[in-house]
């Protein structure tokens, strides 16, 4: 029973981190219909930046989120301006290929800078745990999960409470009309791309404390993230959060009760079954076919 309780709490904490990163991915899709395959790569980049801040300056990686996040935001903003914007009207598969290429480039650059060996961030509390009624909760997991929730709430507040958030939602609902009421959609899109990647970067700094990583880890992450947003319904923020929690549980339970080797297969299996049974995901909606101009 305590093992189960522990598994559930831990998987919810992990789910919170997934939710943060997946929100960024689904936000980018919702506003600009771009599936950012490089999302996992920027997560790993966030982890490496946090690693450098920690190993060179002794900055705690979780505190370092304050620096990591703006850096990745800036990169995202720049990438949108330089690469995504020129092809914003091309078919969606073009942006998939573009961001896939981008992921390979980021992987290669990270390999050149930080090497292709497994890297870990190990602050002092990494081996300590909280003990609550027989349940062991590693401090890193607790701090990381809580921080992820805080950043996620901040993102949510930006989207719902600010003028920028309203502009973003307007641009997502109808870009042409948003232009007409004075929203500069491409500027909004650049900010969204930055915000989305920043969520990945923040998530990377957090997961860097929990798991070791190398440049090639981004494939595993993008598979996991895509599974989450596909399950939740592409473009749905609430769906992404919900399915991230489900996903955290499914993955942890598979690892604990079946075998860690098969836990890596969970995302792929989920993608298959969701798209087979309910292609629009949990909270996604099908679009009216006839309103899509030919």
């Amino acid at each position, binding site marked *: 029973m305590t093992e189960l309780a522990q598994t559930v709490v831990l998987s919810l904490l992990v789910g919170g981190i997934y939710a943060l990163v997946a929100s960024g991915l689904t936000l980018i899709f919702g506003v600009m219909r771009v599936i950012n395959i490089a999302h996992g790569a920027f997560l790993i980049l966030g982890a490496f930046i946090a690693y450098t801040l920690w190993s060179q300056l002794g900055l705690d990686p979780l505190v370092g989120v304050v620096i990591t996040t703006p850096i990745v935001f800036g990169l995202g903003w720049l990438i949108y301006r330089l*690469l995504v914007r020129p092809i914003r009207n091309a078919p969606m598969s073009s942006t998939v290929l*573009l961001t896939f290429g981008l992921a390979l480039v980021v992987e*290669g*650059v990270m390999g050149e800078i930080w090497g292709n060996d497994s890297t870990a961030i190990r602050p002092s509390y990494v081996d300590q745990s909280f003990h609550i009624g027989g349940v062991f909760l590693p401090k890193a997991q607790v701090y990381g999960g809580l921080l992820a929730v805080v950043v996620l709430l901040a993102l949510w507040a930006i989207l719902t409470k600010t003028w920028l958030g309203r502009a973003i939602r307007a641009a997502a609902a109808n870009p042409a009309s948003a232009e007409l009421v004075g929203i500069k959609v491409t500027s909004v899109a650049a900010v969204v791309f930055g915000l989305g990647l920043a969520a990945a970067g923040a998530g990377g700094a957090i997961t860097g404390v929990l798991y070791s990583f190398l440049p090639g880890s981004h494939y595993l992450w993008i598979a996991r993230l895509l599974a989450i947003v596909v399950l939740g319904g592409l473009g749905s923020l609430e769906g992404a959060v919900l399915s991230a929690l489900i996903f955290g549980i499914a993955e942890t339970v598979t690892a604990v009760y079946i075998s860690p080797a098969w836990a890596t297969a969970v*995302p792929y299996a989920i*993608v*298959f079954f969701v798209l087979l049974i309910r292609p629009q995901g949990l909270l996604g909606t099908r679009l009216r076919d006839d309103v899509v101009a030919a």
Partner: protein
Amino acid sequence: MSRAAEPAPPEPPAYDLIWVGRGIALVAAVLLVLYPILSDDLYYQNMIIFSLVFAIAASGLSIITGLAGYVSLGQGAFIGLGGYTVGVLATRHPDTNVWLWMPLAGVTAGLVALILGFVALRARGPSFVIITVAFLFLVQVIAINLPSLTGGTAGLSLPIPTWDPDIANWPFYYTLVGILALQLLLTWWIRRTKLGTGLVAIREDETKAATIGINLPVEKMIAFVASSVLVGVAGGVYGYYLTFIDPRGMFNILLSVETMLALLVGGKATLWGPVLGAFIVEPLNEIANNDLGGGNTKLLIFGGLLVLIVLFLPQGVLPAIESLLSWSRTRGKAGLVGARIGTAGSLASLTGRLSLVERDPAVERPPLLEVTDLRKAFGGLKAVDGASLVVPEGSITGLIGPNGSGKTTLFNLIDRTIHADGGEIRLAGERIDGLSSWARAHRGLGRTYQITRLFREMTVLENVVAAQRSFSWGQLGRIAVSGPEARAAEELLEYVGMRAFRDQKASALSYGQQKLVELAQVLMLDPRLILLDEPAGGINPVLIGRMSEMIRELNSYGKTFLIVEHNMPFVLGLCDPVHVLGRGRTMASGTPAEIQQDPAVVDAYLGDDFVLEAADVADEPQEATK
């Protein structure tokens, strides 16, 4: 466009250019075949062998990605599956000749493609890409986790070839050349058939493709299997050539990336592009591996190339060269698209295609289309809310109603562009509400769109040829680009007055011209019932006149029409009976005269100052043509 009253004859195709291209291909093929005999440089033989594998994979990929528009990043998995089929069988039966397993590698790849297709082809666009990547990783995880079958991460060692070491590479080399030839033949043949035009139609507009009779799942599935079988065989040869296979190598995503790059670099919708691309990309890969430190450099080159291609050369090298040449050829000449539309067509020439129906006006006409209590809600909005109407056989029935009353949605439900929530639809007595769009088209339902939906990248002729009257395997294999199919399409284009435009891309046409081509496209189905969504909307008065003339003429040949239109003189002059739709329900039905008197209709739609005598042509706002 004041110069020509008659449209200039279409530009003769540049035959000399085609022959130059064929000459180059022939020389390259001869060099390829002779190379191992002329040179025993193993480094380059090795490079060519790898290039051949990717050329086969990319040419296969051009069927599902280039023609059908489904971008797959799982193509490398079929190389791996082929390699593993041969690897597993060869290690278990060490006394059997390894070459005997090669066909089985193709069978495995084809079967997996078929199974994957059931899942993957339900998804469109980006979801399909995601699934193919997930598929690749899933196969890799399975290969790692089943060591008893695959040797797990330790991999499998295949038997070392026993033939004369002097010609060590020849069997691999020439087998791959042969497979490439077969793959190119297959790709070339598919491109010329009805299947090929169907696939391009799917790429351009899948929903529309279904309404002109294209059986989406079957045709996509054929394409998917056809794009993988020979790749599996090539993968088997590749695995044998390597003599060692492991999951990280055989199911590496970079195999898929390299295949995709070869396709994109060369030109994804061309026959020779994938081959050219493979022979550009694979040598780059070798250089990156041997001279630039491999690993990260390779990632930078592949990733960077992918980004640059998508940004700057989305068409690929071959189409870029082609458009450059055609630009220099046609520079300074006026285009055809502004020319006048022909008016010469007569139905008499079409009697082979359109069945003539003898009709006795005295006999009560049976209903051809019966819609009963049809419903569709979008969230809380009830767009169609219990609509019922009857279209008598041989009639020109009108459907009018205020904007937002559900007319187009009703059309979409009738041809299953969208799925109804409830209600019954019968065509000639048979219930069709459970049928797919293409099955409805095969039973005689044709439909045009308010905002025309031609396949923009296809020529006018291809647009018409793409329609499929019925489904049969034999028909899919029929050649579409010439012969009887093309002739039939040309006759229809002649009839609507658009024959002179047959080789123009649909995207170059004006809105009115597109309406005419869309009509010809629908006629290619030889439908019993034609649904026209605002045939007179947004086109000039002369064309409106011609349109109603054609509708009458086709009607006299037995075609039944259901027409949505806001141009009241047009509707009330042409249609009988007329149904009026309001708030998703049929609020009135009757002859034009009765409709004009109906107080509810006058109140909801026509307005009390409506008089038909003001029968000038349409003064309604022009439709945005985008």
